[in-house]
């Protein structure tokens, strides 16, 4: 039986084995996420029903929710019904906005994703380019600058650099757009296609909105990239430098292979760990988004989470944690699959 499964499995193409193997791992992880968000609320002192409904709730409503959550049943029954609700897309009702949490989250997700998306691209470009140049031209100006930047970037709080950027580029110089939201308050957002204002406005052919969105993105994206590119750069540097010093690179050089071909090969070799780091970066950026969105009144998930914390809006917080973790698990899943695909040494 096992052997039969084994041989069937072996006959699958490598890429499919990788994807299936990883997918099988996500299920217990997702289960773990549900467990954590479930107990997050139950760990609090006090009645979960009151916590979830807020202090203003009527006794009737509390009794009703207690019943719906099955608070009188065993913990496991409660958990099963919680999982059931989540699977049906029911994350409860926000105390603060009075909307279903699912609706709130869906509404705000594109803002955060757009921010993270561009911040990510900028971070990776800055981090990887500086790292490669500093290693290939060791001791050169880029190398020296990278060392100072690497040290400084790790020490600068993102919320603080965001404020400084606003002060310099908006208040003092007046170059940047106002730090209030994703587009000019006078404009109406383009029709919803992807949720990314930059893309939707281009789809709608509305250049004015497009430039407004780009202008608003500039400072927050820069804030996130400045802080996070430093860490990515340092890690890429150490990985790439390790490959750069390795025997096969020196051997390629001794074989007369041109430098640019060697750089490409070395980069290809550094790719698997870099991909893993970029995966972690997404998690970091999500954390950074919480702070940066607050500063720029971005109206995304991060700001929603902060409001939830400030207002003790537990259903919203619970929902945010659940969605954020699920998002990150998906990112890690993709990263792991990519990692194994680009590294032929890994046996499935």
């Amino acid at each position: 039986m096992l052997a039969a499964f084994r041989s069937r499995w072996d006959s699958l193409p490598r890429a499919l084995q990788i994807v299936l193997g990883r997918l099988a791992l996500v299920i217990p992880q997702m289960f773990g996420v549900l467990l954590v968000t479930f107990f997050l609320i139950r760990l609090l002192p006090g009645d979960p029903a009151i916590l979830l409904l807020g202090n203003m709730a009527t006794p009737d409503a509390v009794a009703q929710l207690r019943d719906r959550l099955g608070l009188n049943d065993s913990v496991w029954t409660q958990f099963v019904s919680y999982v059931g609700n989540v699977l049906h897309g029911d994350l409860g009702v926000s105390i603060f906005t009075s909307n279903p949490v699912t609706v709130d989250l869906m509404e705000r997700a594109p803002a955060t994703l757009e921010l993270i998306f561009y911040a990510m691209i900028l971070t990776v470009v800055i981090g990887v380019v500086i790292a490669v140049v500093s290693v290939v031209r060791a001791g050169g100006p880029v190398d020296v600058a990278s060392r100072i930047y690497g040290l400084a970037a790790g020490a600068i709080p993102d919320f603080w650099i965001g404020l400084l950027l606003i002060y310099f580029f908006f208040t003092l110089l007046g170059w940047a757009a106002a730090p209030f939201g994703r587009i000019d308050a006078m404009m109406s957002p383009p029709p919803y296609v992807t949720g990314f204002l930059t893309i939707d406005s281009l789809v709608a052919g509305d250049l004015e909105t497009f430039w407004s969105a780009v202008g608003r993105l500039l400072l927050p994206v820069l804030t996130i990239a400045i802080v996070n590119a430093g860490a990515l750069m340092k890690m890429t540097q150490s990985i790439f430098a390790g490959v750069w010093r390795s025997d096969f690179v020196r051997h390629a050089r001794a074989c007369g292979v041109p430098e640019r071909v060697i750089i490409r090969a070395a980069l290809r070799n550094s790719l698997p760990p870099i991909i893993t780091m970029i995966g972690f970066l997404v998690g970091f950026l999500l954390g950074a988004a919480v702070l940066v969105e607050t500063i720029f009144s971005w109206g995304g998930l991060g700001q929603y989470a902060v409001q939830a914390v400030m207002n003790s809006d537990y259903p919203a917080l619970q929902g945010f944690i659940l969605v954020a973790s699920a998002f990150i698990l998906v990112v890690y899943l993709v990263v792991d699959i990519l990692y194994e695909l680009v590294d032929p040494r890994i046996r499935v």
Partner: protein
Amino acid sequence: MTRSELDMKPVLSVEGLRVVFDTPDGDRTILQDVAFELRPNEILGIVGETGAGKSVLARAIIDLLPEGGRRVGGTVEIMGRQLERMDEGERRQVRGGQVALIGTNAKALLDPVERVGNQIVRVLRSHRKLSRKDAWAKAVKLLGDVGIVNPAERARAYPHELSGGMAQRVVIAMALITEPKVLLADDATLGLDATVSVQVLDMLVERSRELGLSVVLITHDLGIIAHYCNRVAIMRQGRIVEMRDVTGFLAKPGTPYSQELLDAAKARPVPSIRATASEGQPLLEVSNLLKIFAGSRPGEEVRAVDGVSFSVRRGETLALVGESGSGKTTIGQCLVRLLDASGGAIRFDGRDITTMPEAEFRPLRRRIQMVFQEPYVALNPRWKVMRLVDEPLRMLEKASAAERLRRVHRALDLVNLPTSHAELYPHELTAGEQKRVGIARALVTEPDFIVFDEPTTALDIRVRAQIIDLVRDLQSRMRLSALFITHDLNSVRSLAHDVAVMNRGRIVEAGPLEDVFASPKDPYTVKLLSAELAVEHEAEARHVHIPQPKEAMI
């Protein structure tokens, strides 16, 4: 060699080469006044110990010195053109195009995430304008020529899918693909099994002859020099101290240092004092030993040791000989209970230790000790020599601190280390001294039986000879019984009374050393012995008589 060949212009000539490295304490000279010429079709051997500057020389020839090194004097002339007169583009064309370098540890020289065929194509296309398809066809053909079976399929393999020997063949193919004029082989077969190493070197030399290449064989193994080379250059501390034809060198080395090297490379006579009391039961008796490891896939099993039996009497040394993967090290680990045997019995002094609980075995550890293979990694880097040698005493014997100190000093004395070394850390010692500390640790509890795991690998020729002499001395002075695990046949000749040849987990042939080595019966033993490039045999083949070394000083 005919007169006209000698008159031909050298393909490579090095004149007054001087290379320095910058260190925190200022420049350090690594190469000094190095001069030699490489003639067409010649195979020149360069031999020297670690730090002699052999590898730096090879890199200086292709103008790719390691970081921190620079050439401060002399010229390198390749095919009549001076390297220093070329621009960077031309120099790149020389590397791999006219002078190809083959390094040690082939698996590390290959790009791990690129198919090996593409790596050969990459080199070819760096030097010739050729379509990818044509280049691939040439690469596949060459892979076949360097002895890779099924080259079309193997070209698509990644380096981790190749054995060490195959990887070395691929690296050779990378060197030959551009049809260079000079091949620099820098310890190219170091770390390969002897049988594989000989096959690869044979192939390399044969190809070079066919293609009319000149070869520089850089090695620390005089056997390789004696077998393959026309001329030899002896390097020491950055200088060539002697350079002449190999036959002449074997007959009578020109400098005391060369003489010392040659002596060190020869086997010592078999220890004459065989156990006096050969009667009675053996000290160690292994019967039908079995060790099974789980394979890489569920349900699969690997029989690393498959029904092995042997015995060792007091005062006797048995050599367990075999190539990597033969299971010889596993047996050693079973003897000292680093691994638990899967079956069979190990009887030490009459007691079966195979199934004994650790608590019961512990007192026996004092009597059965092991010397580990790699000297540096077998010593805790944060402990001083004193503490390292003291550890077995503290753990296994109840002795006062003063008594222990006395015994540690005596153990250091036995292995010829000054007691002042007790205050040093392992990284402050040379490889030979580290090895001695390892031996001192094993000796300090005055054991009856010692397992030596590859005691002579990765050591320089002279250091190796010193360790062999040390062990010989201990054998005769302490009437030590030992199991000697090695692939180095030369050291077996010098140390063992009996020998057991292992292949794939089994002993294929065993008996007294003289019998097995003089008239091997098993085909594997024959193959193993024929792969040994012993200087004595090579000298005989060149009709040179070399005298036995006098008992060297330890």
